[in-house]
Protein backbone atom coordinates (compact mmCIF):
# COMPACT_ATOMS: atom_id res chain seq x y z
CA UNK A 1 0.00 0.00 0.00
CA UNK A 2 1.53 3.28 -1.08
CA UNK A 3 1.10 6.11 1.35
CA UNK A 4 -0.14 9.23 -0.40
CA UNK A 5 2.08 12.32 -0.36
CA UNK A 6 5.12 10.45 0.98
CA UNK A 7 8.28 11.39 -0.93
CA UNK A 8 10.10 8.42 -2.44
CA UNK A 9 12.94 7.07 -0.37
CA UNK A 10 15.53 4.37 -0.84
CA UNK A 11 15.76 1.52 1.56
CA UNK A 12 18.45 -1.13 1.78
CA UNK A 13 17.04 -4.51 2.70
CA UNK A 14 20.29 -6.48 2.93
CA UNK A 15 23.16 -7.72 0.82
CA UNK A 16 22.54 -9.15 -2.63
CA UNK A 17 24.72 -12.18 -1.91
CA UNK A 18 22.83 -12.90 1.29
CA UNK A 19 19.38 -12.51 -0.24
CA UNK A 20 19.82 -14.14 -3.65
CA UNK A 21 20.03 -17.59 -2.09
CA UNK A 22 16.32 -17.25 -1.37
CA UNK A 23 13.96 -17.17 -4.31
CA UNK A 24 11.67 -14.74 -2.53
CA UNK A 25 11.52 -12.59 0.56
CA UNK A 26 8.40 -10.67 1.65
CA UNK A 27 8.98 -7.67 3.86
CA UNK A 28 6.91 -5.19 5.78
CA UNK A 29 8.80 -1.92 5.68
CA UNK A 30 7.18 0.71 7.82
CA UNK A 31 3.76 -0.61 6.88
CA UNK A 32 4.48 -1.10 3.17
CA UNK A 33 4.49 -4.72 2.15
CA UNK A 34 6.78 -5.79 -0.71
CA UNK A 35 7.81 -9.12 -2.25
CA UNK A 36 11.38 -9.26 -3.58
CA UNK A 37 12.25 -12.08 -6.00
CA UNK A 38 15.54 -13.46 -7.26
CA UNK A 39 15.59 -15.60 -10.43
CA UNK A 40 18.97 -16.32 -12.00
CA UNK A 41 20.63 -12.91 -12.18
CA UNK A 42 17.33 -11.04 -12.22
CA UNK A 43 15.75 -9.18 -9.30
CA UNK A 44 12.16 -7.98 -9.15
CA UNK A 45 10.08 -6.36 -6.42
CA UNK A 46 6.28 -6.23 -6.39
CA UNK A 47 3.78 -4.63 -4.03
CA UNK A 48 2.31 -7.38 -1.90
CA UNK A 49 -1.27 -6.47 -2.78
CA UNK A 50 -3.18 -8.47 -5.37
CA UNK A 51 -5.06 -6.56 -8.09
CA UNK A 52 -7.95 -8.99 -7.67
CA UNK A 53 -9.21 -8.45 -4.11
CA UNK A 54 -6.23 -7.02 -2.29
CA UNK A 55 -4.87 -10.34 -1.02
CA UNK A 56 -1.25 -10.86 0.08
CA UNK A 57 -0.16 -11.99 -3.39
CA UNK A 58 3.55 -12.34 -2.60
CA UNK A 59 2.95 -14.62 0.37
CA UNK A 60 1.71 -17.49 -1.75
CA UNK A 61 3.70 -20.08 -3.63
CA UNK A 62 5.84 -19.70 -6.69
CA UNK A 63 5.30 -22.39 -9.31
CA UNK A 64 6.31 -23.28 -12.85
CA UNK A 65 4.13 -21.83 -15.60
CA UNK A 66 1.59 -24.27 -17.02
CA UNK A 67 1.51 -24.55 -20.80
CA UNK A 68 -0.76 -26.28 -23.25
CA UNK A 69 1.46 -28.28 -25.54
CA UNK A 70 0.32 -28.12 -29.17
CA UNK A 71 1.83 -29.87 -32.15
CA UNK A 72 2.26 -27.06 -34.70
CA UNK A 73 1.96 -29.39 -37.68
CA UNK A 74 -1.26 -31.16 -36.67
CA UNK A 75 -2.88 -28.77 -34.18
CA UNK A 76 -3.24 -31.70 -31.80
CA UNK A 77 -2.55 -31.22 -28.10
CA UNK A 78 -1.03 -33.91 -25.89
CA UNK A 79 -2.29 -31.90 -22.87
CA UNK A 80 -0.88 -29.62 -20.23
CA UNK A 81 2.76 -29.41 -19.30
CA UNK A 82 5.04 -27.36 -17.03
CA UNK A 83 7.63 -24.84 -18.20
CA UNK A 84 10.21 -25.13 -15.46
CA UNK A 85 12.31 -22.27 -16.84
CA UNK A 86 9.71 -19.68 -15.82
CA UNK A 87 8.20 -18.94 -12.44
CA UNK A 88 4.75 -17.73 -11.54
CA UNK A 89 3.72 -15.94 -8.36
CA UNK A 90 0.45 -17.45 -7.08
CA UNK A 91 -1.82 -15.34 -4.91
CA UNK A 92 -2.78 -17.48 -1.91
CA UNK A 93 -6.29 -16.00 -1.69
CA UNK A 94 -7.78 -17.24 -4.99
CA UNK A 95 -4.95 -18.41 -7.19
CA UNK A 96 -4.34 -15.54 -9.64
CA UNK A 97 -0.95 -16.31 -11.25
CA UNK A 98 1.56 -13.65 -12.31
CA UNK A 99 4.83 -14.04 -14.18
CA UNK A 100 7.59 -13.45 -11.62
CA UNK A 101 9.65 -11.33 -14.05
CA UNK A 102 6.92 -9.27 -15.74
CA UNK A 103 4.16 -9.21 -13.10
CA UNK A 104 1.63 -10.00 -15.83
CA UNK A 105 -1.25 -12.41 -15.21
CA UNK A 106 -0.92 -15.78 -16.94
CA UNK A 107 -4.00 -15.22 -19.13
CA UNK A 108 -5.17 -11.62 -18.85
CA UNK A 109 -2.35 -9.25 -19.78
CA UNK A 110 -4.32 -6.28 -18.42
CA UNK A 111 -4.11 -7.69 -14.89
CA UNK A 112 -0.70 -6.88 -13.42
CA UNK A 113 1.25 -6.59 -10.22
CA UNK A 114 2.45 -3.13 -9.24
CA UNK A 115 6.25 -2.88 -9.42
CA UNK A 116 8.60 -1.46 -6.80
CA UNK A 117 11.88 -0.16 -8.26
CA UNK A 118 14.75 -2.37 -7.11
CA UNK A 119 18.51 -2.24 -7.78
CA UNK A 120 21.80 -3.51 -6.39
CA UNK A 121 23.82 -0.59 -5.01
CA UNK A 122 27.30 -1.30 -3.61
CA UNK A 123 26.34 -4.94 -3.04
CA UNK A 124 23.07 -4.09 -1.25
CA UNK A 125 19.54 -4.67 -2.54
CA UNK A 126 17.85 -1.28 -2.52
CA UNK A 127 14.13 -0.61 -2.93
CA UNK A 128 12.67 2.75 -3.87
CA UNK A 129 9.47 3.14 -1.93
CA UNK A 130 6.80 5.72 -2.61
Amino acid sequence: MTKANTPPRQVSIGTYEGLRTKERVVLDIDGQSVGVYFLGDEIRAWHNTCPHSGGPVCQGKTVARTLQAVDAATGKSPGLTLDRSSRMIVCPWHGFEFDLLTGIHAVDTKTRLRPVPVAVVDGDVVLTLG
Partner: protein
Amino acid sequence: MRPTQLDKARIRELEEIGTRSDTRDVLARATMQAKRDYDDYFVVDIDAHVSEDHFWGEVIELIDNEYLRDLGQSQLRSFAGNNALLNIVPGLSHQSVGGRITHQGRREPDVPQGEHPFVVAAQRSMDAMGLDYQIVFPSAMLLLGMHPQDEVEVALARAFNRWTVERILPMDERLKAFVYLPFNTPEACEALVAQYADAKDVIGFTVCSTRNNAIHADCYARLYAMIEESGKPLAFHSGYHWGDPSFAQLNRFATMHALSFTHYNQIHVSNWLFNAMPERFPKLKMLWVESGLAWIPFLMQRLDHEVLMRPSEAPGMKRLPSEYMAEMWYTSQPMERTNMELLEATMKVMKAETQLLYSSDWPHWDWDAPSVITTLPFLSDQAKRNILGLNAARLFNLDIKPKKPRADAVLATRPGRS
Protein backbone atom coordinates in the same frame (compact mmCIF):
# COMPACT_ATOMS: atom_id res chain seq x y z
CA MET B 1 22.34 8.79 -3.70
CA ARG B 2 23.26 6.53 -0.80
CA PRO B 3 20.24 4.66 0.47
CA THR B 4 18.97 5.28 3.97
CA GLN B 5 19.69 2.27 6.18
CA LEU B 6 16.51 1.86 8.18
CA ASP B 7 16.42 0.61 11.70
CA LYS B 8 16.09 -3.19 11.31
CA ALA B 9 13.19 -3.23 13.76
CA ARG B 10 11.11 -1.41 11.16
CA ILE B 11 11.66 -4.12 8.55
CA ARG B 12 10.15 -7.46 9.28
CA GLU B 13 9.84 -10.55 7.17
CA LEU B 14 6.38 -11.93 6.44
CA GLU B 15 5.79 -15.65 6.32
CA GLU B 16 4.53 -17.68 3.39
CA ILE B 17 0.86 -18.55 3.68
CA GLY B 18 0.43 -22.31 3.61
CA THR B 19 -1.41 -25.28 4.97
CA ARG B 20 -0.35 -24.58 8.56
CA SER B 21 -1.01 -20.83 8.60
CA ASP B 22 -3.25 -19.31 11.24
CA THR B 23 -6.58 -18.08 9.83
CA ARG B 24 -5.86 -14.62 11.26
CA ASP B 25 -2.67 -14.43 9.18
CA VAL B 26 -4.29 -15.73 6.00
CA LEU B 27 -7.05 -13.14 6.37
CA ALA B 28 -5.06 -10.20 7.78
CA ARG B 29 -5.66 -8.18 4.61
CA ALA B 30 -9.41 -8.70 5.05
CA THR B 31 -9.07 -7.34 8.59
CA MET B 32 -7.32 -4.27 7.18
CA GLN B 33 -10.14 -3.90 4.64
CA ALA B 34 -12.65 -4.12 7.51
CA LYS B 35 -10.78 -1.41 9.40
CA ARG B 36 -10.73 0.81 6.30
CA ASP B 37 -14.27 0.26 4.99
CA TYR B 38 -16.80 -1.47 7.21
CA ASP B 39 -15.77 -1.74 10.84
CA ASP B 40 -19.12 -0.32 11.97
CA TYR B 41 -21.28 -2.40 9.60
CA PHE B 42 -23.37 -5.31 10.86
CA VAL B 43 -22.10 -8.24 8.78
CA VAL B 44 -23.58 -11.73 8.41
CA ASP B 45 -21.90 -14.43 6.38
CA ILE B 46 -24.67 -16.71 5.13
CA ASP B 47 -22.46 -19.45 3.76
CA ALA B 48 -19.22 -20.59 5.35
CA HIS B 49 -18.08 -24.17 5.53
CA VAL B 50 -17.04 -26.78 8.00
CA SER B 51 -14.23 -28.95 6.67
CA GLU B 52 -16.11 -31.80 8.27
CA ASP B 53 -13.65 -34.40 7.05
CA HIS B 54 -11.30 -33.16 9.80
CA PHE B 55 -13.93 -34.07 12.39
CA TRP B 56 -15.49 -36.94 10.54
CA GLY B 57 -14.84 -39.40 13.37
CA GLU B 58 -16.96 -37.21 15.66
CA VAL B 59 -19.83 -37.27 13.16
CA ILE B 60 -19.59 -41.00 12.42
CA GLU B 61 -19.73 -41.68 16.16
CA LEU B 62 -23.17 -40.01 16.27
CA ILE B 63 -24.77 -42.22 13.57
CA ASP B 64 -27.78 -43.76 15.25
CA ASN B 65 -27.98 -46.83 13.00
CA GLU B 66 -25.66 -49.37 14.59
CA TYR B 67 -24.80 -51.15 11.35
CA LEU B 68 -23.88 -47.96 9.47
CA ARG B 69 -21.98 -46.57 12.44
CA ASP B 70 -19.93 -49.76 12.61
CA LEU B 71 -19.36 -49.68 8.84
CA GLY B 72 -18.34 -46.02 9.02
CA GLN B 73 -15.96 -46.55 11.89
CA SER B 74 -14.38 -49.48 10.13
CA GLN B 75 -13.89 -47.41 6.93
CA LEU B 76 -12.56 -44.53 8.99
CA ARG B 77 -9.81 -46.76 10.35
CA SER B 78 -8.94 -48.15 6.92
CA PHE B 79 -8.85 -47.10 3.27
CA ALA B 80 -11.64 -44.48 3.27
CA GLY B 81 -10.25 -42.54 6.24
CA ASN B 82 -11.93 -39.15 6.60
CA ASN B 83 -14.15 -39.88 3.61
CA ALA B 84 -15.81 -42.85 5.27
CA LEU B 85 -19.31 -43.52 3.86
CA LEU B 86 -19.06 -40.43 1.62
CA ASN B 87 -19.36 -40.37 -2.18
CA ILE B 88 -16.82 -37.64 -2.91
CA VAL B 89 -14.03 -38.67 -5.25
CA PRO B 90 -10.73 -37.48 -3.72
CA GLY B 91 -8.85 -37.90 -7.00
CA LEU B 92 -11.24 -35.51 -8.72
CA SER B 93 -11.19 -32.89 -5.97
CA HIS B 94 -8.95 -30.25 -7.53
CA GLN B 95 -10.08 -27.34 -5.34
CA SER B 96 -6.53 -26.44 -4.27
CA VAL B 97 -5.37 -26.13 -7.91
CA GLY B 98 -2.51 -28.53 -7.34
CA GLY B 99 -1.62 -27.04 -3.94
CA ARG B 100 -1.60 -23.43 -5.14
CA ILE B 101 -4.52 -22.37 -2.91
CA THR B 102 -3.96 -23.79 0.53
CA HIS B 103 -6.76 -22.52 2.76
CA GLN B 104 -9.30 -25.17 1.79
CA GLY B 105 -8.51 -28.21 3.86
CA ARG B 106 -6.06 -26.27 6.06
CA ARG B 107 -5.82 -27.41 9.67
CA GLU B 108 -5.94 -24.62 12.21
CA PRO B 109 -2.71 -24.37 14.22
CA ASP B 110 -2.34 -23.34 17.89
CA VAL B 111 -5.77 -24.45 19.05
CA PRO B 112 -5.95 -23.82 22.81
CA GLN B 113 -6.30 -26.92 24.98
CA GLY B 114 -9.91 -27.91 25.48
CA GLU B 115 -11.30 -25.89 22.60
CA HIS B 116 -12.80 -27.37 19.46
CA PRO B 117 -10.57 -26.83 16.38
CA PHE B 118 -13.53 -26.05 14.13
CA VAL B 119 -14.96 -23.46 16.50
CA VAL B 120 -11.55 -21.84 16.97
CA ALA B 121 -11.03 -21.65 13.18
CA ALA B 122 -14.53 -20.23 12.67
CA GLN B 123 -14.06 -17.64 15.41
CA ARG B 124 -10.76 -16.54 13.91
CA SER B 125 -12.32 -16.22 10.46
CA MET B 126 -15.26 -14.21 11.83
CA ASP B 127 -12.98 -11.86 13.72
CA ALA B 128 -10.56 -11.49 10.82
CA MET B 129 -13.27 -10.75 8.23
CA GLY B 130 -15.28 -8.55 10.56
CA LEU B 131 -18.37 -10.78 10.76
CA ASP B 132 -21.02 -10.55 13.45
CA TYR B 133 -22.52 -13.93 12.56
CA GLN B 134 -21.47 -16.86 10.42
CA ILE B 135 -23.77 -19.57 9.13
CA VAL B 136 -22.03 -22.87 8.56
CA PHE B 137 -22.70 -25.55 5.96
CA PRO B 138 -20.99 -28.90 5.43
CA SER B 139 -18.47 -29.42 2.59
CA ALA B 140 -17.98 -33.04 1.54
CA MET B 141 -21.65 -33.71 2.30
CA LEU B 142 -22.69 -31.30 -0.47
CA LEU B 143 -22.55 -34.24 -2.87
CA LEU B 144 -24.61 -36.61 -0.72
CA GLY B 145 -27.71 -36.09 -2.87
CA MET B 146 -25.98 -38.25 -5.49
CA HIS B 147 -25.13 -41.02 -3.00
CA PRO B 148 -26.56 -44.30 -4.30
CA GLN B 149 -27.66 -45.35 -0.81
CA ASP B 150 -30.49 -43.15 0.46
CA GLU B 151 -30.18 -44.63 3.94
CA VAL B 152 -26.59 -43.39 4.15
CA GLU B 153 -27.71 -39.85 3.34
CA VAL B 154 -30.33 -40.09 6.09
CA ALA B 155 -27.89 -41.49 8.66
CA LEU B 156 -25.19 -38.92 7.91
CA ALA B 157 -27.70 -36.07 7.85
CA ARG B 158 -29.03 -37.01 11.27
CA ALA B 159 -25.54 -37.41 12.70
CA PHE B 160 -24.19 -34.20 11.17
CA ASN B 161 -27.17 -32.19 12.37
CA ARG B 162 -26.70 -33.52 15.89
CA TRP B 163 -22.97 -32.76 15.77
CA THR B 164 -23.64 -29.22 14.57
CA VAL B 165 -26.60 -28.33 16.77
CA GLU B 166 -25.65 -30.13 19.96
CA ARG B 167 -21.87 -29.96 19.92
CA ILE B 168 -20.75 -26.97 17.82
CA LEU B 169 -23.36 -24.20 17.93
CA PRO B 170 -23.57 -23.97 21.74
CA MET B 171 -19.87 -23.04 21.81
CA ASP B 172 -20.36 -19.64 20.17
CA GLU B 173 -23.53 -17.56 19.85
CA ARG B 174 -22.21 -16.03 16.61
CA LEU B 175 -22.37 -19.40 14.87
CA LYS B 176 -25.67 -20.48 13.32
CA ALA B 177 -26.64 -23.28 10.95
CA PHE B 178 -29.20 -24.66 8.57
CA VAL B 179 -30.36 -28.21 9.22
CA TYR B 180 -29.31 -30.59 6.42
CA LEU B 181 -32.34 -32.32 4.88
CA PRO B 182 -31.72 -35.77 3.31
CA PHE B 183 -33.95 -34.87 0.40
CA ASN B 184 -33.89 -38.31 -1.22
CA THR B 185 -36.07 -39.46 1.70
CA PRO B 186 -38.93 -36.99 2.26
CA GLU B 187 -40.24 -38.59 5.48
CA ALA B 188 -36.81 -38.28 7.09
CA CYS B 189 -36.77 -34.59 6.14
CA GLU B 190 -40.16 -34.08 7.74
CA ALA B 191 -38.93 -35.70 10.95
CA LEU B 192 -35.91 -33.37 11.02
CA VAL B 193 -38.06 -30.29 10.47
CA ALA B 194 -40.31 -31.38 13.33
CA GLN B 195 -37.26 -31.97 15.52
CA TYR B 196 -35.46 -28.69 14.80
CA ALA B 197 -38.21 -26.20 13.88
CA ASP B 198 -37.86 -24.42 17.22
CA ALA B 199 -34.12 -24.95 17.81
CA LYS B 200 -32.67 -21.56 18.74
CA ASP B 201 -29.51 -21.58 16.64
CA VAL B 202 -31.06 -23.30 13.62
CA ILE B 203 -31.96 -20.46 11.28
CA GLY B 204 -33.38 -22.56 8.45
CA PHE B 205 -33.29 -25.80 6.51
CA THR B 206 -31.10 -26.71 3.59
CA VAL B 207 -31.20 -29.07 0.65
CA CYS B 208 -27.98 -29.70 -1.24
CA SER B 209 -28.96 -28.92 -4.82
CA THR B 210 -26.66 -31.46 -6.44
CA ARG B 211 -29.17 -34.20 -7.02
CA ASN B 212 -31.66 -35.40 -9.59
CA ASN B 213 -34.89 -34.93 -7.63
CA ALA B 214 -37.78 -32.97 -9.12
CA ILE B 215 -38.30 -30.54 -6.27
CA HIS B 216 -41.94 -29.86 -7.19
CA ALA B 217 -42.92 -33.52 -6.66
CA ASP B 218 -45.93 -34.10 -4.45
CA CYS B 219 -43.89 -36.24 -2.07
CA TYR B 220 -42.42 -32.95 -0.78
CA ALA B 221 -45.74 -31.10 -0.28
CA ARG B 222 -45.97 -31.92 3.42
CA LEU B 223 -42.31 -31.00 3.96
CA TYR B 224 -42.77 -27.58 2.36
CA ALA B 225 -45.91 -26.96 4.39
CA MET B 226 -44.01 -27.80 7.57
CA ILE B 227 -41.11 -25.50 6.70
CA GLU B 228 -43.53 -22.75 5.73
CA GLU B 229 -45.23 -23.18 9.08
CA SER B 230 -41.88 -22.93 10.91
CA GLY B 231 -41.30 -19.48 9.37
CA LYS B 232 -37.69 -20.40 8.65
CA PRO B 233 -36.22 -20.20 5.13
CA LEU B 234 -35.44 -23.14 2.87
CA ALA B 235 -32.00 -22.84 1.27
CA PHE B 236 -30.91 -24.78 -1.79
CA HIS B 237 -27.12 -24.96 -1.61
CA SER B 238 -25.61 -25.68 -5.00
CA GLY B 239 -22.61 -27.83 -5.73
CA TYR B 240 -20.86 -29.75 -8.47
CA HIS B 241 -20.86 -33.28 -9.76
CA TRP B 242 -18.28 -34.25 -12.33
CA GLY B 243 -19.94 -37.63 -12.74
CA ASP B 244 -23.06 -36.08 -14.29
CA PRO B 245 -23.00 -37.21 -17.95
CA SER B 246 -23.20 -33.63 -19.28
CA PHE B 247 -20.33 -32.46 -17.11
CA ALA B 248 -18.27 -35.53 -17.93
CA GLN B 249 -17.68 -33.86 -21.30
CA LEU B 250 -15.65 -31.15 -19.55
CA ASN B 251 -11.97 -31.90 -19.04
CA ARG B 252 -11.13 -29.09 -16.62
CA PHE B 253 -12.26 -28.66 -13.02
CA ALA B 254 -12.78 -24.93 -13.75
CA THR B 255 -15.32 -25.42 -16.54
CA MET B 256 -17.13 -28.21 -14.73
CA HIS B 257 -17.24 -26.10 -11.56
CA ALA B 258 -18.37 -22.93 -13.38
CA LEU B 259 -21.28 -24.65 -15.06
CA SER B 260 -22.45 -27.17 -12.50
CA PHE B 261 -22.86 -24.73 -9.60
CA THR B 262 -25.33 -22.74 -11.69
CA HIS B 263 -26.88 -25.75 -13.41
CA TYR B 264 -28.49 -27.41 -10.41
CA ASN B 265 -30.09 -24.25 -9.04
CA GLN B 266 -31.35 -23.28 -12.50
CA ILE B 267 -33.14 -26.61 -12.79
CA HIS B 268 -34.65 -26.33 -9.33
CA VAL B 269 -35.82 -22.72 -9.80
CA SER B 270 -37.36 -23.63 -13.17
CA ASN B 271 -39.33 -26.52 -11.68
CA TRP B 272 -40.31 -24.40 -8.69
CA LEU B 273 -41.81 -21.69 -10.89
CA PHE B 274 -43.46 -23.68 -13.68
CA ASN B 275 -45.19 -25.84 -11.10
CA ALA B 276 -46.52 -22.73 -9.36
CA MET B 277 -44.87 -23.51 -6.05
CA PRO B 278 -44.73 -19.81 -5.02
CA GLU B 279 -48.52 -19.72 -5.31
CA ARG B 280 -48.97 -23.06 -3.54
CA PHE B 281 -46.60 -22.22 -0.67
CA PRO B 282 -46.74 -18.43 -0.65
CA LYS B 283 -45.11 -17.92 2.72
CA LEU B 284 -42.18 -20.27 2.11
CA LYS B 285 -39.01 -18.17 1.97
CA MET B 286 -36.71 -19.54 -0.73
CA LEU B 287 -32.97 -18.89 -0.65
CA TRP B 288 -30.55 -19.92 -3.42
CA VAL B 289 -26.98 -20.43 -2.25
CA GLU B 290 -23.59 -20.46 -3.98
CA SER B 291 -24.42 -20.08 -7.63
CA GLY B 292 -23.10 -16.53 -7.95
CA LEU B 293 -25.35 -13.94 -9.58
CA ALA B 294 -24.88 -14.06 -13.35
CA TRP B 295 -27.32 -16.96 -13.79
CA ILE B 296 -30.18 -14.95 -12.29
CA PRO B 297 -30.82 -12.46 -15.15
CA PHE B 298 -30.18 -15.25 -17.66
CA LEU B 299 -32.86 -17.46 -16.14
CA MET B 300 -35.28 -14.58 -15.60
CA GLN B 301 -35.14 -13.64 -19.28
CA ARG B 302 -35.18 -17.21 -20.52
CA LEU B 303 -38.18 -18.31 -18.47
CA ASP B 304 -40.14 -15.10 -19.11
CA HIS B 305 -39.58 -15.61 -22.83
CA GLU B 306 -40.85 -19.20 -22.75
CA VAL B 307 -43.84 -18.73 -20.48
CA LEU B 308 -45.24 -15.93 -22.61
CA MET B 309 -45.37 -18.30 -25.58
CA ARG B 310 -46.43 -21.42 -23.66
CA PRO B 311 -48.70 -20.23 -20.83
CA SER B 312 -50.66 -23.48 -20.98
CA GLU B 313 -47.62 -25.20 -19.44
CA ALA B 314 -47.61 -22.90 -16.44
CA PRO B 315 -51.24 -22.12 -15.68
CA GLY B 316 -50.57 -21.81 -11.95
CA MET B 317 -48.35 -18.78 -12.41
CA LYS B 318 -50.00 -15.41 -11.94
CA ARG B 319 -46.97 -13.31 -12.81
CA LEU B 320 -43.81 -13.60 -14.86
CA PRO B 321 -41.05 -15.89 -13.58
CA SER B 322 -38.74 -12.90 -13.21
CA GLU B 323 -41.21 -11.30 -10.82
CA TYR B 324 -41.28 -14.37 -8.59
CA MET B 325 -37.50 -14.62 -8.79
CA ALA B 326 -37.12 -11.03 -7.65
CA GLU B 327 -38.94 -11.99 -4.44
CA MET B 328 -36.60 -14.87 -3.61
CA TRP B 329 -33.32 -14.47 -1.75
CA TYR B 330 -29.84 -15.21 -3.06
CA THR B 331 -26.34 -15.39 -1.58
CA SER B 332 -23.59 -13.42 -3.26
CA GLN B 333 -20.62 -15.74 -3.63
CA PRO B 334 -18.91 -16.44 -6.01
CA MET B 335 -19.80 -12.95 -7.23
CA GLU B 336 -18.85 -12.49 -10.89
CA ARG B 337 -17.33 -9.02 -11.15
CA THR B 338 -15.24 -8.74 -14.28
CA ASN B 339 -17.85 -6.50 -15.93
CA MET B 340 -19.29 -3.80 -13.66
CA GLU B 341 -22.06 -2.83 -16.09
CA LEU B 342 -23.39 -6.39 -16.17
CA LEU B 343 -23.09 -6.73 -12.40
CA GLU B 344 -24.93 -3.47 -11.83
CA ALA B 345 -27.74 -4.53 -14.19
CA THR B 346 -27.90 -7.93 -12.46
CA MET B 347 -28.21 -6.36 -9.03
CA LYS B 348 -30.93 -4.09 -10.31
CA VAL B 349 -33.14 -6.81 -11.80
CA MET B 350 -32.77 -9.14 -8.85
CA LYS B 351 -33.49 -6.32 -6.38
CA ALA B 352 -30.20 -6.91 -4.63
CA GLU B 353 -30.81 -4.09 -2.20
CA THR B 354 -33.40 -6.20 -0.40
CA GLN B 355 -32.86 -9.78 -1.70
CA LEU B 356 -29.11 -10.32 -1.77
CA LEU B 357 -27.20 -11.73 1.21
CA TYR B 358 -23.42 -11.58 1.51
CA SER B 359 -21.71 -14.97 1.76
CA SER B 360 -18.02 -15.76 2.02
CA ASP B 361 -17.86 -19.51 1.31
CA TRP B 362 -14.77 -19.44 3.52
CA PRO B 363 -12.51 -21.46 3.61
CA HIS B 364 -13.23 -22.74 0.12
CA TRP B 365 -10.92 -21.79 -2.72
CA ASP B 366 -13.24 -19.28 -4.47
CA TRP B 367 -14.32 -17.45 -1.31
CA ASP B 368 -15.26 -13.75 -1.21
CA ALA B 369 -14.28 -11.23 1.46
CA PRO B 370 -16.88 -8.60 2.48
CA SER B 371 -14.83 -6.11 0.46
CA VAL B 372 -16.37 -7.55 -2.73
CA ILE B 373 -19.49 -5.64 -1.67
CA THR B 374 -17.96 -2.57 -0.04
CA THR B 375 -15.81 -1.80 -3.08
CA LEU B 376 -18.67 -1.82 -5.62
CA PRO B 377 -18.80 1.67 -7.13
CA PHE B 378 -22.51 1.73 -7.94
CA LEU B 379 -24.03 0.73 -4.59
CA SER B 380 -25.21 3.23 -2.00
CA ASP B 381 -23.95 2.94 1.56
CA GLN B 382 -27.39 1.70 2.61
CA ALA B 383 -27.42 -0.96 -0.12
CA LYS B 384 -24.01 -2.20 1.04
CA ARG B 385 -25.20 -2.37 4.65
CA ASN B 386 -28.32 -4.28 3.56
CA ILE B 387 -26.42 -6.81 1.49
CA LEU B 388 -23.71 -7.32 4.08
CA GLY B 389 -26.02 -7.92 7.01
CA LEU B 390 -29.33 -6.12 7.32
CA ASN B 391 -31.16 -8.23 4.71
CA ALA B 392 -30.02 -11.34 6.59
CA ALA B 393 -31.11 -9.86 9.90
CA ARG B 394 -34.61 -9.39 8.49
CA LEU B 395 -34.78 -12.83 6.88
CA PHE B 396 -33.42 -14.73 9.89
CA ASN B 397 -34.60 -12.51 12.73
CA LEU B 398 -31.11 -11.74 13.96
CA ASP B 399 -30.37 -9.15 16.61
CA ILE B 400 -28.30 -6.42 14.95
CA LYS B 401 -26.36 -5.43 18.04
CA PRO B 402 -22.63 -5.64 17.12
CA LYS B 403 -21.04 -8.94 18.08
CA LYS B 404 -17.62 -8.68 16.50
CA PRO B 405 -14.42 -7.16 17.88
CA ARG B 406 -13.09 -4.03 16.18
CA ALA B 407 -10.56 -4.65 13.42
CA ASP B 408 -7.81 -2.84 15.36
CA ALA B 409 -8.22 -5.23 18.25
CA VAL B 410 -8.01 -8.23 15.90
CA LEU B 411 -4.86 -6.94 14.22
CA ALA B 412 -3.31 -6.30 17.65
CA THR B 413 -3.62 -10.01 18.51
CA ARG B 414 -1.15 -10.94 15.73
CA PRO B 415 1.55 -8.26 15.85
CA GLY B 416 4.32 -8.94 13.40
CA ARG B 417 2.90 -12.11 11.93
CA SER B 418 1.11 -11.17 8.76
